[in-house]
């Protein structure tokens, strides 16, 4: 499992930081360092995500990387992916 520190600006939907950390402990340390740095800034989400790859992360947490319209269109393509399997 790889650990990624994500710093995300929620309203504008911008990834401010996406860093791979060398260990879970270092990831947690980096998270809290970032939390202290952004403690007075609104609408910032700081989280450590653990995934096998960044591609997995982008699949399971697409809202960090796509706007709502793009997410809806991904949904459209997924409908056909599911329907095609029957």
């Amino acid at each position, binding site marked *: *499992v790889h650990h990624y520190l994500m710093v995300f600006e*929620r*309203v504008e*939907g911008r990834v401010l930081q996406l860093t791979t950390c060398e260990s*879970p*402990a270092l*990831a*947690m*340390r980096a*998270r*809290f360092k970032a*939390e*202290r740095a952004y*403690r007075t800034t609104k*609408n910032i*989400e*700081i*989280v*450590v*995500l*653990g*995934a*096998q790859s960044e591609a*997995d*992360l982008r*699949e*399971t*947490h*697409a*809202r960090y990387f*796509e*706007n*709502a*319209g793009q*997410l*809806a*269109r*991904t*949904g*459209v393509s*997924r*409908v*056909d*992916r*599911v*329907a095609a*399997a*029957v």
Partner: protein
Amino acid sequence: MRQEASIRLSFVGSPSVRSMPLPDGVSRSQMDNLGTRLVAHPNDISDRDYDLLERVLGNYQHALDLAQVRLQGLGIRATGRVKSTSTLVEKLVRQEGMKMKGIRDIAGARIVVDKGRLEQDRVADEVVAAFLNEPRAPRVIDRRATPSAGYRAVHVVVHHLGLPIEIQIRTLLQDSWAQIVERLGDIWGRGLRYDEDFAGSEIVIAGDVTRATVMHQCREVSEAIHSFEAREAILQAWANGDDATSRSDSLEQGPWYRGPWDAREPYAEFLMGKQEAHEALSTLRQALLTLLDSLAGLVDRLEAI
């Protein structure tokens, strides 16, 4: 008629397990007192409390990592996260009186299955089996026929190192829906995920379209996904050579009962021929696509503002 519902698989755990300190020695009362201080001063967290929170959450991170490795060994790809401080505090505020140690999703993992509900069922069974030998048995929460504000998924709360880990298992379409609503929640406030009359729901985003209009459309899409997936599962079971009628009976004897796929029209397909059932699915597919296209159009207007 039987309803899909949250299922408590087994015992809830002995009080001694619940009151045990965290693996690194932080006591549960220290943790709860920390939660109380976070709620009292959410915008003024002291350095000391940040240090304690880091220790507390480090325990959850460790349990989560081990759980993910166990899932990985089964070929299940999950993305894990420990709750952010802001969402942790929001939850403590929203659910007044809740103790921090009582929050079951401080550690969570998400699995998006590649297909529909049959695959979701299969993965949920595997997750349950993987954690059955823990002192506290897994608990399955099936939010498909009984969604939470439109959100549909199967959640399995497992325990490892004495800590709960909530594993979300979503189909592709349930995940798309959730991602859209979570993204809107980023912009309009997370309250929309819990309340139809969320703060600011009346705000106009373009023309006569309000935030409430968009959320109403989201609920419609959620219903359409549910209907589509319920029928897709039955046709998929047929394609697999599975007699869906006897399968639904046998499910009641399985490790957790999940009920009929669609509580409103459970077995309409069994009265149809297969051709007719495929045509019904095609109609549902088209209806879902129309709703999703319409939703995409609405939120595009939002992004353009």
